[in-house]
């Protein structure tokens, strides 16, 4: 760890102001980044982390403040400016072109050339090599949109790594990665750090923060709350600084267990028999009981999302059956599933969840309205009330319920989408990575909702890449591997290591 007193910061932001219509996103925010350090930016959802990064990288122009890079004042006007200054960025919402191939997404803008032509073959080889460094082995010639979000995230990271830069910025790169991949990423980051690169890292995971960072800047309400050496700040203190008020001493660490509801009845809400789809999912038998949380664990690409999509009718199963309340059903579209009281929160918020230019209120009531039918419009007053209630209950940070959801911070969007389904009062709620990009406190809250909802009789299918989270809330856990279910365990039968063994195909020890 560099000695901050002697080394000059490679990057310094000071007094940054940024105002959006109705929101002061940044108020005198700042940041110092030293060469050869991993610096974590922390703060609650909507604290202004992403905005600060966007100001730094020329996406937004600040209303005031200064940015200094290697001793020189800079005013990046566009992302090209920032890139040419040596700032390489992975943004929070994956910003790649879905129509281009994986390799192209990594190299676009700086293609390897031969004879003044783009060297496609060389590019694919290099891309494969880069991804191999992150232990991703995929067909780099296939379009990016063929791959799930996690892979896209890895591609975005690979792209950033490929750029010769002094400063590397990663805005929540780990939100859709699993533990193993996070570790991989970290080892890459460490080696870059050792080469003298300054790395800015945004995350909501305390574990990860402590695992990798040297220093931490905490942001609160658009301000810089403070800058700390990692070793000098305890977890509780960190959380308190983020939240702004001392929280109860209850540990918020994901490693600690919360008490789950565990009042699962015996009546099956949903049961599948050999539900399958060719090339995507092998026959799966699942049973979800009333009032229970069924966790789905597994590695990336193990078929969890596919299972969820089949259950929800988002994709059509080509064999097997779904039984709800003892009657067999086929779901050709989500409409059918919703009619049976199923809700589904997708993992891909930007493309499958939020309808960006509609307001928070409109996004929130959408599913409920869809279920009621087009003609029976929910009265405006009632819409407002619903929106107000949920915004308050889930603590969504938004200027008003009429602001477009696209202007909310990532975590807050997620809360609104959760509310969209809660408003329909479903019998079974499928949550695919619901806590992605959500701050510690909100995460805790969401987990609490999940358990309390179950107490009220709702069943939940819970998918998350964070094993501890799955272990903590689930009454039962189904582990998936290679697109099929390979084991079912009750609460307490498994701990983190044993799950990992199952996932790896070694069985419970």
């Amino acid at each position: 760890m560099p000695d901050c007193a002697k080394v000059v910061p490679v990057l310094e932001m000071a007094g940054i102001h940024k105002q959006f219509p109705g929101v002061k996103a940044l108020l005198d925010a700042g940041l110092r980044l030293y060469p050869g350090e991993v610096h974590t930016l922390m703060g609650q959802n909507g604290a202004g982390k992403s905005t600060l990064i966007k100001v730094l990288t020329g996406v937004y122009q600040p209303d005031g403040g200064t940015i200094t890079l290697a001793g020189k004042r800079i005013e990046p006007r566009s992302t090209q400016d920032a890139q040419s200054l040596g700032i390489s960025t992975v943004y929070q919402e994956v910003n790649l072109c879905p129509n281009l191939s994986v390799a192209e997404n990594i190299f676009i803008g700086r293609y390897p050339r031969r004879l003044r032509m783009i060297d496609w073959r060389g590019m694919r080889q290099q891309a494969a090599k880069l991804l191999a460094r992150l232990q991703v082995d995929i067909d780099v010639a296939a379009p990016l949109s063929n791959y799930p979000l996690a892979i896209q995230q890895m591609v975005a990271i690979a792209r950033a790594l490929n750029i010769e830069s002094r400063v590397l910025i990663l805005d929540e790169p780990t939100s859709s990665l699993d533990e193993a991949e996070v570790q991989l990423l970290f080892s890459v980051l460490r080696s870059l750090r050792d080469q003298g690169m300054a790395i800015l890292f945004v995350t909501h995971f305390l574990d990860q923060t402590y695992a990798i960072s040297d220093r931490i800047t905490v942001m609160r309400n658009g301000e810089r709350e403070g800058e700390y050496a990692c070793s000098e700040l305890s977890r509780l203190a960190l959380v308190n600084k983020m939240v702004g008020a001392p929280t109860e001493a209850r540990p918020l660490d994901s490693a600690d267990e919360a008490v789950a509801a565990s009042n699962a009845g015996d009546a099956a809400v949903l049961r599948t028999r050999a539900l399958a789809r060719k090339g995507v999912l092998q026959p799966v038998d699942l049973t979800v009981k009333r009032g229970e949380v069924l966790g789905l664990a597994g590695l990336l690409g193990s078929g969890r999302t596919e299972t969820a999509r089949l259950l929800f009718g988002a994709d059509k199963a080509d064999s097997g059956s779904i039984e709800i309340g003892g009657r067999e059903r086929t779901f050709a579209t989500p409409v059918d599933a919703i009619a049976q009281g199923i809700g589904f929160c997708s993992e891909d918020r930007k493309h499958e969840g939020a309808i960006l230019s509609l307001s928070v209120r409109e996004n929130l009531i959408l599913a409920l309205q869809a279920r009621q039918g087009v003609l029976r419009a929910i009265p405006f007053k009632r819409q407002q009330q619903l929106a107000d209630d949920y915004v308050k209950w889930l603590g969504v940070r938004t200027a008003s319920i009429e602001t477009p959801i696209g202007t909310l911070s990532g975590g807050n969007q997620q809360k609104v989408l959760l509310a969209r389904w809660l408003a329909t009062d479903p019998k079974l709620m499928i949550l695919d990575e619901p806590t992605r990009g959500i701050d510690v406190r909100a995460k805790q809250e969401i987990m609490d909702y999940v358990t309390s909802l179950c107490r009220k009789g709702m069943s939940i299918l819970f998918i998350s890449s964070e094993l501890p989270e799955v272990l903590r809330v689930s009454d039962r856990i189904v582990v998936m591997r290679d697109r099929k279910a390979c084991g079912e365990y009750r609460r307490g039968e498994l701990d983190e290591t044993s799950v990992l063994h199952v996932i790896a195909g070694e069985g419970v020890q």
Partner: protein
Amino acid sequence: MSVHAHDARTALEPAAAKERLVFLRHPLFRPAAALAVLLLIDFFAIPGFFHLEIKDGHLYGSLINIVNRAAPLMLAALGMTLVIATRGIDISVGAVVALSGTVAAMLIGGTMVVNDGVPEYVSQTPMPLALAAALGAALLCGAWNGLLVAGFKLQPIVATLILMVAGRGLAQLFTDGQIVTVYYKPFFFLGGGYMLGLPVALFLVAAVFIITALLMKKTALGLFIQAVGINPVAARLAGLRTATLIFFVYVFCAACAGLAGLIVTSNIKSADANNAGLLLELDAILAVTLGGTSLAGGKFSLVGSMIGALIIQTLTYTIYSLGVPPEVNMVVKAVVVFLVSISQSAQFKHLWQRRAA
């Protein structure tokens, strides 16, 4: 931690000033302003432009003319707005206009019997039946488009291109390429009659507009159409019947075009399958965009489209009235479209403000 002092007041003052002129930021302000400017030019350049008089018990004057002429365009633009809101486009409206007008004219038909120089009119089919058949034909066209777009998932522009080409062919087939003249007085009421001193066509437009607006506001249709237009994938996952919605908007658009066809036919007392509604689709799309609706789908404004249609018709009328030589018509139209749309862009406002500051 060094913190730069920042004078927050200077940043806030203009914002406060802006609050008072909030109507300037209303999305409809700029289309309306463009129309107003156009009318103002007319006021100075064309004597008696705003003059209205009562003739034969109804209002008569340039303004009445403009709204009367704009009626088919306004109807087409209403339907087109919804199609565009779902990210679609319908270039077959002109053909549908021709088709519905032809069906009505052929069914009503009639012959002129001249008795001592006094013409008498006879209809072939009862008028309500003929009108129903014409609208039915339009609905069929819409269903066809809807099927191709929502069912077969063809790209809207090619899907409707098929009907654009074939629809007019069908209309010509029915009439053998002849202009079908209608000799039946009651039919003329639709496109040429007056009620309470105002053109009947205006009431039709108003009725369709109000029904559409109510449908959008009082039911969830408006919300759903926007949702489908902005993010079809997310909309489907939220439980919307996206295909049904898309099917509906094409049917609705064709119905509007069908009604427009009836007005056109009734107004010139004949159905001209060759030329009725020719290029109306372009004007309708132009009206929608001038009204501030994006062709990328999503948010839409029905009122905006109405204003857009009025801008186009006022412009056409102005060109005719000012005595612009016909060979310059297009250039004038182009320049005005450029000016109006540039003046509507946010960037223009910035430039303007910077100059003013």
